[in-house]
C-alpha cells in the first residue's frame, strides 16, 4: 500500500487491511502460521477462564506475540451488555488493551447482533476510554447511531458469522460507506477470496476473516489468497473503475485497418 493510503483505527496505524480471527484452527501453531502468511497485523482474541487443572495447555500468547501483532479482544459468546462489559474490562486488565471488538449476540442460531445491547455497551465503553470496534448488522441507521455513540469502527456483517455466504446486501454497505468516515470493516460472512475483493471494492476499509481461512481445506493457501484479495480489492477501489456500459467498446483503434 502507498504511504498515503493508511489504515487507521483508534488512532493507530496498521499496514494490513486484513484482520484475522484466531479461532477454529486445528492447533495454535497452525493458527500462528496462517496469521503470518495472511500478513495481518491485527488478530481477534477471546477472553476465557484459565485452565487451572491442565496447566500444560499452550497459551495463545506463547504462539502469537502481542508485541508484534495487535490483539483485538472480542466479546464472542456474550449475549448481554453486562457480559460484554465484564469481558472487555477483564481484557483491558490483562495488559492494557483499549482497542476492542464489541460483539453482543442476540440469537444463538443466526448469531445476529442484539442492536439495543450493542448500542448501550458502545456508549458505556466509550465513556470508559475504550476504542470500540463494533460488530453490527448492515443497517445504515444503526451504524449512524453507533457512530454517534462514539464507536471507533463500524463492523457490519456481510452474512451470518461463520456462514461463508458472502456479501448479501451491497446496497446497505454502500449506503453505510457513503455516510461515514469511520473505518468500515466487514466482520462476518466472508467465504472466499472474491468476497473479500468485493468488500474492498465497495469501499470498505478492511475485512475480518476467521472461518473462511481456518476451515478452508488448506488454511495457509487461503490465508495468502485473502491477503492478496484485500490488497487487490483496495487497489481496484482506489483506481476508480470504468463506467459499466451495456454495449461493447473496441480496445483496438480502427485507424490503419487494412
Amino acid at each position, binding site marked *: 500500500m502507498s504511504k498515503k493510503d493508511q489504515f487507521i483505527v483508534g488512532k493507530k496505524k496498521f499496514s494490513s487491511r486484513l484482520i484475522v*480471527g*484466531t*479461532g*477454529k*484452527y486445528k492447533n*495454535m501453531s497452525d*493458527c500462528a502460521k496462517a496469521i503470518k502468511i495472511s500478513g495481518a497485523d491485527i488478530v*481477534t*482474541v*477471546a*477472553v*476465557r*477462564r*484459565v485452565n*487451572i*487443572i491442565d*496447566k500444560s495447555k499452550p*497459551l*495463545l*500468547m506463547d504462539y502469537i506475540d502481542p508485541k508484534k501483532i495487535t*490483539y483485538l*479482544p*472480542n466479546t*464472542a459468546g456474550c449475549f448481554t451488555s453486562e457480559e460484554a462489559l*465484564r469481558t472487555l*474490562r*477483564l*481484557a483491558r*486488565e*490483562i*495488559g492494557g488493551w483499549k482497542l476492542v471488538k464489541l460483539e453482543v449476540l442476540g440469537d444463538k442460531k443466526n448469531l445476529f447482533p442484539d442492536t439495543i445491547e450493542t448500542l448501550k455497551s458502545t456508549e458505556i465503553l466509550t465513556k470508559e476510554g475504550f476504542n470500540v470496534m463494533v460488530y453490527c448488522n448492515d443497517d445504515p441507521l444503526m451504524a449512524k447511531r453507533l457512530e454517534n455513540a462514539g464507536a471507533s469502527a463500524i463492523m457490519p456483517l456481510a452474512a451470518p*458469522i*461463520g456462514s461463508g455466504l458472502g456479501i448479501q446486501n451491497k446496497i446497505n454497505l454502500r449506503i453505510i460507506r457513503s455516510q461515514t468516515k469511520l473505518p468500515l470493516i466487514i466482520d462476518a460472512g466472508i467465504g472466499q477470496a472474491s468476497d473479500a475483493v468485493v468488500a474492498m471494492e465497495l469501499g470498505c476499509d478492511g475485512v*475480518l476473516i*476467521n*472461518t473462511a481461512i481456518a476451515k478452508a481445506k488448506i488454511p495457509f493457501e487461503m490465508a495468502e489468497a485473502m491477503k492478496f484479495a484485500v490488497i487487490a480489492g483496495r487497489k481496484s477501489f482506489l483506481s476508480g473503475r470504468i463506467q459499466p456500459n451495456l454495449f461493447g467498446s473496441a480496445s483496438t483503434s480502427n485507424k490503419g485497418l487494412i
Partner: protein
Amino acid sequence: MRKKNKIKITVNGKQIAVNLKFSLKNLIDKLKLPIKKVAIELNREIVNKKRISKIILKSGDKIEIVNFIGGG
C-alpha cells in the same frame, strides 16, 4: 476430617481449599500462572494486579482468572 486451618474458595468455578491468610498472590503462585498474561476478578470485582499480595482470601471468595484464547 475437618481442617480448621483451611478455607474454601472457588476458582474458575472449582472449589479448592487453601490455608488461612492465603493471599491472592499465593494463589497465583500456587497455580503457577503467568501474572502478565491473566486478569483476575474477586467476587465480580476486577483486581489491580499490583495489589494481589495485599489481598487476603476469605472463605467463600469467588475468583475468576482469565486469559486470551483463540477466537473470531
